[in-house]
């Protein structure tokens, strides 16, 4: 249905000012064009005093009246306030509901930005509060874990298995893909400089040490933090938004013991398994490259056996345990900290990824220092 246009006639009034006569429809469909037309027609006409005759309007709605509001408030011809006449009572009532320009300005303007020092202070306080929340969470979680381990029968093992399946088994394809590619990439990157030194065969040694001690656990933890961490945070966040956590508390059940312990135990059990699997695939990727470089598998295997010690496997597996616990624990914390509304769930998931990755790299750095000092 085509919109009827607004008729606009502009002319000189007897008092030396200008008059505007409006006819037809002035509604949400026509008001934009009417406003533009009005500005063009008023240009070049002496416009003070300006009077508007709206008696010829057949129909109008709230949106259409905005142009009359602008005319009346001197916003079409800057500074010239028009006198509106001829409005039907119902349209006058609509115009009366309009706010004053100052009121609109006050209602939509943002509060003044705080000075930088205030933002800095708020940021610092937020970090302190976050660290405090983490410490409290670690304490409460440890207590709940100990209680759970003392009474393993009370642990909700089906829930642990569900989380292991959801967060772990489903992650196998991604871990396989990433693990194999890491082995291939490291082998190819190491092959070139070692070939120049005539030590190409030591690619196997490099793969063994780098993948087993460092990249295997690290890449696996990043995969878990990126894939499973946000899922855990979103699940708990959604439960909080839906007041399921409040329901647990009012039933006398501690959400930490009832929900978080199972997820952390699942993460702790799952991560080393995934790490070892990823390491195996990384080494396999390296062996493939060694084969492509012309070295028989027996030679590669012999070098791997020579370079890799049980301690390396122990370090890699321990990292897996620690990283898995950190990622799962922090994901649960972020889920429990979720605010209100669906947006909060998304924020909790994002926060879980960031916290997980930061904590994994921090822990890895501590491992590097510790193993150096202990000469492991």
């Amino acid at each position, binding site marked *: 249905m085509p919109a009827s246009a607004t008729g606009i006639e502009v002319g000189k009034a007897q008092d030396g000012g200008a008059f505007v006569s409006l006819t037809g429809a002035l509604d949400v469909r026509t*008001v934009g064009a009417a406003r533009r037309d009005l500005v063009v027609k008023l240009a070049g006409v002496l416009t003070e005093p300006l009077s508007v005759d709206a008696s010829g309007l057949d129909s109008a*709605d709230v*949106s259409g009246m905005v142009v009359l509001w602008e005319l009346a408030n001197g916003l079409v011809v800057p500074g010239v306030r028009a006198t509106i006449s001829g409005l039907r009572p119902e349209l006058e009532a*609509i115009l009366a509901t*309009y*706010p004053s320009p100052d009121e609109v300005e006050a209602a939509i303007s943002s509060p003044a930005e705080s000075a930088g020092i205030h933002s800095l202070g708020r940021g610092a306080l937020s970090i302190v509060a976050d660290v405090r929340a983490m410490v409290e969470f670690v304490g409460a979680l440890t207590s709940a874990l100990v209680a759970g381990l003392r009474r393993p029968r009370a642990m909700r093992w089906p829930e642990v298995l569900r989380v292991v399946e959801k967060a772990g088994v489903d992650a196998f394809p991604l871990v396989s893909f990433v693990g194999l590619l890491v082995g291939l990439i490291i082998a190819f990157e190491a092959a070139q400089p070692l070939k120049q030194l005539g030590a190409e065969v030591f690619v196997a040694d490099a793969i063994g040490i780098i993948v087993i001690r460092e990249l295997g656990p690290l890449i696996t933890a990043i995969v878990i933090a990126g894939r499973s961490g946000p899922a855990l945070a979103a699940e708990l966040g959604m439960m909080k938004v839906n007041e399921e956590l409040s329901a647990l508390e009012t039933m006398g059940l501690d959400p930490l013991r009832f929900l978080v312990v199972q997820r952390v135990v699942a993460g702790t059990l799952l991560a080393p398994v995934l790490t070892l699997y990823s390491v195996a695939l990384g080494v396999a990727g390296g062996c493939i490259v060694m084969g492509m470089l012309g070295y028989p598998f027996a030679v590669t295997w012999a070098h791997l056996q020579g370079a890799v010690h049980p301690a390396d496997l122990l370090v890699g597996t321990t990292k897996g345990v620690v990283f898995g616990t950190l990622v799962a624990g922090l994901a649960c914390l972020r889920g429990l900290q979720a605010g*209100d509304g669906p947006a909060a769930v998304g924020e909790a998931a994002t926060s879980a990824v960031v916290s997980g990755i930061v904590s994994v790299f921090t822990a890895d750095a501590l491992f590097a220092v510790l193993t150096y000092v202990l000469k492991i």
Partner: protein
Amino acid sequence: MIRVEDVTIGYGERIVMSGVSFEVRRGEVFVILGGSGCGKSSLLKNLIGLQKPMKGRILVGGRDVAAAEGDERQALLRSFGVMYQSGALFGSLTVHENVRLPLDEFTDLSLRQRDVLAHTRLKMVGLGHAGRRMPSELSGGMKKRAAIARALALDPPLVFLDEPSAGLDPVTSAGLDALILDLARNFGITFVVVTHELLSIFAIADRCVMLDASRKTLVAEGKPRTLADSSEDQAVLRFFRREAEGAQTDRSQPK
């Protein structure tokens, strides 16, 4: 304004209601009522084009809602506003931005004009002070008021309200009823309201239809007071008298 012609609604094999016909006249407040699970919200989804009826047709402003496609469907959708039960305000936008959104997307008005219109709408629903707040900072009643303001943003002649009083205290609910009546009387807007709140029905409805879950069809049509006083249908009488079958539920009555 709306004509529902022998409509059957369902999901897959399951029929929710069938043989439903009624008309909504221009400028009236029309209520669709019925007990929980009778298909009120399903009917609403069909009226606003989110679902297609299995049989029959629904005409809004003379256009078949289910058959409209492309530009015709867009024009049809813009010809009415909808307030969803939860408000469905966008959580990442302020209340003011929520109300301004349809104006941003579908008009060529300047930013100042859109701001003025959005604020005017918020003032009309009594939320002129809350434009800068986020939806999460509003109470349930305020969310519904803001959602009504957004539904009115493009001056639609027809507005659908899904359970406007649900979950609200009686005072807030009465305020919302007054707002609906005010908008209907002063701006000539046709309202189709889905509700089962008796007080609201008597307060706002010019006419109503009642759906019945057990018979899976429309069982009554008319003015609410007339239906309450003189309907011969037992289900209708029970609904209006708030009677559970065979149960005395009014503890204020002397034994």
